[in-house]
């Protein structure tokens, strides 16, 4: 059974040879090949080479397009800082005025900034793993897309205190989300990992989520014709799983290390996919035996409790994560010691 059969079988609730395992390793190839991440995230060929190295080294069951949202931020005019050893970051948002946000033309995916680089990398990944591994792409959820353009603070200010502005920004960003998601899927991507930061308990409590975020989330996610994994974005999401589990297109949830996996399973029911949930912070800080034991504990906990993929919970694994720790997670899934 290869990775694509294993992952798709798991999603469809069919018997598989073992629990699939995955990790966000979009940056990690730079460590393996001693590359500068400023090059990796600016050159599609280098990204593909780095991912080839990742997948030769680690038998993870899915591949990822560049996990780099600064592409979107840059496309809307935000300034970006690149780093040698971490993914690019937004230096300054394009504007903090919602009226200016909604006047901006959408980026041209064939011409603007690094959108062509992203798409070339995605295409290369799909070719590289055709018939072998599913390829997913991350996309900010429609309600956190405004952060790419106006920054978190201005977006929170608008969302919480300016209903008219919030509605207009959400409509604008929702439309962009829909178009960008469709463009990613057009390349033959297996599915989307939707990271909706505004769903995290640490960012938005249930009351504000239900009132300010959920209606827009439902509206725009249901317009996307793609299988989607709803991702925790670094915060807990168990508190809103009951509100989001039935949104069309969502095939599963990646919950945080803070979320209780069994509780998540109870809430979403026996059929939806669940991913998780070893804390990213554990990977560089723990020994391989600890990662192995933690992986085993999770696998035991989730055994025969519905479709499950063992994975890290967070964004890209830090580059200072020892290779043996990633291998330990995979070996736990393979039943090796």
């Amino acid at each position: 059974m290869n990775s694509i059969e294993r992952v798709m079988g798991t999603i469809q609730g069919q018997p598989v040879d073992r629990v699939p395992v995955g990790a966000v390793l979009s940056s990690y190839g730079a460590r393996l090949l001693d590359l500068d991440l400023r090059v990796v995230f600016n050159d599609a060929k280098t990204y593909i080479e780095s991912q080839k190295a990742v997948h030769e080294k680690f038998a993870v069951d899915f591949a990822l397009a560049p996990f780099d949202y600064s592409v979107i931020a840059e496309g809307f005019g935000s300034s970006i800082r690149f780093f040698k050893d971490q993914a690019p970051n937004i230096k300054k948002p394009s504007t903090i005025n919602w009226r200016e946000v909604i006047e901006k033309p959408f980026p041209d995916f064939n011409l603007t900034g690094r959108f062509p680089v992203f798409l070339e990398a995605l295409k290369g990944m799909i070719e590289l793993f055709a018939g072998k591994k599913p390829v997913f792409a991350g996309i900010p959820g429609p309600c956190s897309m405004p952060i790419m353009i106006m920054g978190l603070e201005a977006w929170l200010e608008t969302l919480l205190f300016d209903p008219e502005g919030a509605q207009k920004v959400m409509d604008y960003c929702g439309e962009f989300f829909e178009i960008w998601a469709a463009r990613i899927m057009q390349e033959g991507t297996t599915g989307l990992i939707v990271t909706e930061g505004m769903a995290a308990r640490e960012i938005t409590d249930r009351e504000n989520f239900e009132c300010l975020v959920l209606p827009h989330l439902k509206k725009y996610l249901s317009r996307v014709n793609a299988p989607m994994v709803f991702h925790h974005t670094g915060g807990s999401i168990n508190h809103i799983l009951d509100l989001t589990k039935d949104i069309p297109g969502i095939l599963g949830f990646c919950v945080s290390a803070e979320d209780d996996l069994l509780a998540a399973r109870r809430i979403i029911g026996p059929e939806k996919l669940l991913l998780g949930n070893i804390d990213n912070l554990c990977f560089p800080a723990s020994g391989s035996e600890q990662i192995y034991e933690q992986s085993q504990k999770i696998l035991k906990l989730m055994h025969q409790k519905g479709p499950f993929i063992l994975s890290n919970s967070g964004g890209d694994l830090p580059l200072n994560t020892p290779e043996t720790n990633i291998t330990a997670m995979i070996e736990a899934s393979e039943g090796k010691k």
Partner: protein
Amino acid sequence: MRSKENLQILFDLMLHSERKSAITFIEKLLEEGFSAEYVVRELLDPALVRQGAMWGEGHLSLAQAYVAAKIAEDILMKCLEFEKADDELIKRRGIIVIGNIEDDFHSLGRKIVSIFLKANGWEIIDLGNDVMAEDFVEEAIKSNSSIIGVSAMMYTTAQNIKKVRAEIDARGLQNQIKLAVGGAVFNGRPELVKEVGGDGSAKNAFETLELMDRLLHGCCQRENQQ
């Protein structure tokens, strides 16, 4: 008895993000004859302390904390306006130089901290994002500040805080200037505070109030001993 009721009302309004209702409630109290000092000391401070405890336990979201900070700012401005900017109402505790360390651009936490500290009588000099170590120390010397507060969200950028520690130590200012560090990465890895040379840290904006008092007290004690 009335204070307890008023505190509960304000607390609930803050918790449910009712910014307009909160300020209307405070205006009404001031019009009824309650003093601005009463509002700040008996209502706002305790409400913030209770919210801080909730945040510490993970029961408060960033959105709620953001609204709470805005409400605190609104109330403070209203009280100052009411008391004609009586400086005694807002006890001047000292000056703090804050900023996000070199290569770090996650400013929201820093801004919430800034609002809370201002509301509690601190003068804040905010240097913004991506601040070099020497700029923190230069500004602290220039403004006669006893505390530098440095924020970082990620492990990689937190490492740059070591340069601030080195700058303070190289100038022999370790007894005059205390280094407060904070940001998401420190909550997940508390051992990092020592690793980067911080004199203290707080898990959230509410706890920062106590931290700054403690650090200032440490500085004052040393100055008195010298």
